[in-house]
Each structure stands twice: as C-alpha cells, then as structure tokens.
C-alpha cells in the first residue's frame, strides 16, 4: 500500500489538475457564447446571398455560358477536400471527428478511382492526414497566430481554392467542418462547395421583371466566388462554436473524473491513516502489558 505521504501528494496533484480543467471549462463556456453569437450574426448575409444566387442560377441555368464555378469543369476526376480544424486540443474528439469524416470520404472517392488532394486549415488535422495520405496535402493554411478566425481568413482560403480551381488543379471541392448543434452535440459534416451545388429552384416573385446591371451572368460570376467564401466563413464560425462546445464538455468530464479520483484517494488515505494509528495503539498496549 502506498505510504501516507505518497497519497497526500497524489491528492494534491489531482486537485490542481481539477482546478485547471475547471478553469478551462469556464473559459470555454464564455468563448462558446461569443462564438455562438458570431455564428448567429453571420446568418442574414448568408441567407440573402444564397437567395440571390439561387434565383440567378435558375435563370442562367446550365447554359454553356454559365460560369465554371456553377457548371463545373465537366470532369469528376480530381477531388479536393478542404478540411477545417482547430489549432488546439483539449476538446475531446472534436478534431478527430472532422478528420474521420474527411478520411471516410477520401477512401470512398479513392475506391471509386478518383484522385484526392487535401487543403488543410488549422494545425491539428495535419499529422493524421499526412500519415494516412502521405504527399496528398497540397496546401496548408495556418491559423495559429489568429485569435478569432473571421471573414478575412475565409476570403484568403476561398481565393486560394478558387485560383487552384481556375488553374485546373481539381474538379470538385468538398468542405469538412463540424456543425454546431448544441453545446453537447457537434456533428462533423462534409459538403460540396465547388461546383456550387444546383440550388433548389425558387419561384418567381410576383412575376415582376427584375432588371440587372450588368447582366445576370456577370452578376452571377461576381457572386459565386462570394458564395464559396461565405460557405467557408460559415464553416469556420460553426467550427469555432463547436470547438468551444466540445472543449466545454470534455473539460466538464475531466473535472468530474478528477473529483471521483480525489474522493477515492481520500478514502484510501483515511483508511491508511486509521490503520497506522491502530497499529501504534496495539504496540503501546502490548508494550504496557508486557511490563
């Protein structure tokens, strides 16, 4: 059995671990509220843009003159997986889940004979993907120095992806991130971002003829890259909220585990102490009797 001193030391160390996890949980809860508010504030723009793009896309249709971002390259050979991860751990299986979703998709595509490349955002996914798919990471976007990932980053990523698309580096792009359902539930999801998925047809509003300046196609060509950007932006924001949610849950569990461990150690400590006292008493009594 461990000595009293050892037990005491372990209790102290678990207690200080518990203090850290508790603090981390509190921080995550506060950050979660902020991230959630940011995700909510971004919704109006995305909704309106999607509405406009949908109505324009139905009008322009899949004519030959339609922008390539909408109609695609006509091929389906080379897929790019854009994987959004965070830079920090201590968030349970948050990063692992996103990587897993991307990995499954990659296996599926490879089994179908497609070529797969990766575009990584954030630090955490890199080691795993590099091990599973060596040499297939073609681009990596660092977010280490950025406190709050925002629209500027989304625009940078989107610009890089669009340039690669224009240069013919890939045919289809998918985006992987974690959807924020609630503080307890985050869902790793993948969605196609290039070519822009054909939106559901929207009904003409009141039959009024809309005037365009310049024409429909020029506007669409202008808005489609923005739509890609906004999808990535949405992914980044959802990811930020999910990360904090996952972190909060993980830290809550850790705090509770530490509490259980402290209780167990305390019981053990008290028992050993009692045993030591009893032994001493027995020694004294038997010593007195021997006299």
């Amino acid at each position, binding site marked *: 059995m461990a000595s009293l001193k050892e037990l005491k030391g372990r209790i102290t160390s678990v207690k200080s671990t518990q203090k850290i996890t508790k603090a981390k949980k509190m921080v995550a809860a506060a950050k979660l509220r902020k991230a959630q508010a*940011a995700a909510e*504030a*971004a919704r*109006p*723009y*995305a909704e*309106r*843009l999607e509405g*406009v793009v949908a109505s*324009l896309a139905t009008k322009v249709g899949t004519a030959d003159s339609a922008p390539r971002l909408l109609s695609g390259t006509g091929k389906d050979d080379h897929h790019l997986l854009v994987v959004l991860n965070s830079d920090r751990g201590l968030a349970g299986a948050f990063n692992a889940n996103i990587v897993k979703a991307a990995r499954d998709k990659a296996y599926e595509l490879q089994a179908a004979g497609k070529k797969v490349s990766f575009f990584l955002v954030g630090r955490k996914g890199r080691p795993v993907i590099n091990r599973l798919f060596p040499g297939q990471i073609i681009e990596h976007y660092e977010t280490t120095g950025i406190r709050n990932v*925002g*629209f500027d980053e*989304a*625009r940078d990523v989107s610009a890089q992806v669009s340039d690669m698309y224009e240069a013919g580096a890939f045919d289809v792009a998918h985006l992987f991130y974690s959807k924020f359902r609630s503080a307890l539930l985050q869902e790793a999801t993948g969605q196609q971002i290039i070519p822009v998925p054909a939106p559901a047809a929207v009904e003409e*509003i*009141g039959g*009024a*003829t*809309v*005037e*365009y*300046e*310049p024409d429909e196609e*020029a*506007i669409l060509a*202008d*808005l489609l890259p*923005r739509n890609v*950007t*906004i999808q990535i*932006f949405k992914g980044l924001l959802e990811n930020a909220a999910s990360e904090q949610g996952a972190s909060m849950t993980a830290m809550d569990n850790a705090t509770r585990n530490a509490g259980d461990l402290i209780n167990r150690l305390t019981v053990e400590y008290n028992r050993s102490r009692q045993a030591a006292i009893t032994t001493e008493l027995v020694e004294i009594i038997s010593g007195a009797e021997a006299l």
Partner: protein
Amino acid sequence: MALKFELVTPARLERASDVYMVTVPGSEGDFSVLEGHAPFMATLRNGAITVYATQGSEGEAINVEGGFAEVNEAGLTILAERIAD
C-alpha cells in the same frame, strides 16, 4: 412612405431602418433608390453609399467594399463584404 433599407456584412446585419432615399455606387453608374423602386439587382463598385433619412436631410455616407444591391418589393438590401471606416 419610407424605403426599407438593409445593410448586411458577413459579420452581421449592420443596419436595418426606414429611410427616404439611398444613393448607391453601381458598377455601371450611381443610382438612387426611393420607395417603390422597380425590382433591380446590381453589383457595386467600392465607394460610398449615401443614406438620406428624410427628404431634404443631410446624407450620411457609408464606405462599402465588394458590394451588391438588390431592390425588391421588400426594400433595398445591400450586401457588402466590408465596411471601410
């Protein structure tokens, strides 16, 4: 009657209010929107939109970048990538 005016950036809904008139720097020339304007969509050049709260009032300029304007029966919506200070 007032024109319903909304200015939205990716980060948030920047402004939603009833105004008299808005002058917008369209990519092919400036235009002004009053209440009851015909449905219209246009890309914008970087520049200042001017908001007139009431008839005859002093215009308030807001610099926008990467903008897009949509006019429908609900009013004028401007989607801007960024609002420059």
